[in-house]
């Protein structure tokens, strides 16, 4: 439809909507008293639980650091702590993506700009997150075999033979999936931002 056709169609919609009376004072009153953004909490809680798990794991490694008896294992321990802290921070920053701005009565373009910036940041964080998670997975296998069965899996040549090619294949597929899934969204957000800044 062209813009003027849309206007005509909207006039018909207007007439039909005006005939509808859905909200009575009691319903409106209830709406003002309930925290509807509770739905948002359902999204935020798993992210927060993830963050807590990461912190708890970092603390566990810290407490058991004494069991790591070679320089390699100690390096793996430090790397794991750093990765867990980084993942927690990324997760917390991702949660901010879902936050409604404090002042929702600001001009639409201003909120859209904040929205586009958050969207771009969120997708970048997500990409970094998955990459770091893979590194953490490999690192965790090394550490867990030491912590739970007192074996240094890094001595096993098959571990390295498999972990690197598998990691490469994973990253190859992942980067293709990311470019397919996210590039369009990112491009749209970046275009919108450009338009808003012009």
């Amino acid at each position, binding site marked *: 439809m062209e*813009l003027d056709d*849309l*206007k005509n169609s909207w006039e018909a919609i207007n007439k039909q909507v005006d005939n509808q009376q859905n909200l009575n004072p009691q*319903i409106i009153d209830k709406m003002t008293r309930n925290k*509807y*953004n509770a739905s948002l909490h359902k999204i935020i809680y798993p992210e927060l639980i993830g963050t807590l798990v990461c912190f708890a794991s970092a603390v566990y490694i810290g407490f058991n650091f004494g069991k790591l008896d070679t320089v390699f294992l100690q390096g793996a321990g430090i790397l794991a702590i750093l990765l867990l802290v980084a993942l927690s921070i990324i997760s917390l920053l991702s949660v901010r993506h879902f936050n409604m*701005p404090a002042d929702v009565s600001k001009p*639409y*373009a201003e909120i859209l700009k904040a929205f586009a910036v958050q969207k771009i940041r969120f997708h970048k964080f997500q990409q970094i997150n998955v990459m770091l998670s893979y590194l953490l997975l490999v690192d965790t296998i090394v550490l867990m075999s030491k912590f739970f069965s007192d074996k240094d899996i890094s001595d096993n040549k098959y571990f390295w033979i498999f972990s690197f090619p598998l990691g490469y294949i994973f990253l190859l597929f992942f980067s293709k999936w990311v470019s397919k899934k996210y590039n369009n969204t990112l491009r749209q957000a970046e275009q919108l931002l450009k338009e808003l800044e012009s």
Partner: protein
Amino acid sequence: MDKKETFITAIKANEGLIYKIAAVYTDNTEDRKDLVQEIVYHLWKSFESFNQKSSLSTWMYRVAMNVSIYHLKVAKRKVSTIPIDGEAINFHEPENNDLEDRLKRFRQSVDKLNLLEKGIVMLYVENKSHQEIAEITGISVTNVGTKISRIKDKLKSQLTKQQ
């Protein structure tokens, strides 16, 4: 009249506005109900800060459209709103499917537009002047004119491609 009563009267008077904005930003009745609830909640939350620098309708459009953008993200994650005190609000369904069909066709036509353009179209078809659109969106009046003519071209070329 106390603050709550004033608010309820304002919402009742602008119920159609809230419903229409929710209908443009959602594509099913469940999401629409959630969005209407969320818009009313945020309108109430920011009612205190409404300083009458802008008109009531400008403020309502801003809040409703801004909440809609954020609701889109939540809706995409397939999360539904909690019912009020255990009971869901039952909106009357349209008397016939005509309204739903019209809304669907409207959404399909603006689907390829970005969120800024979608907002401008929404205000344009609501017969808002360029000045009012500028006030609600926060872009200049000249820019509103430029954007509307670009949107016209976009919709026209979209139509040509479909034919």
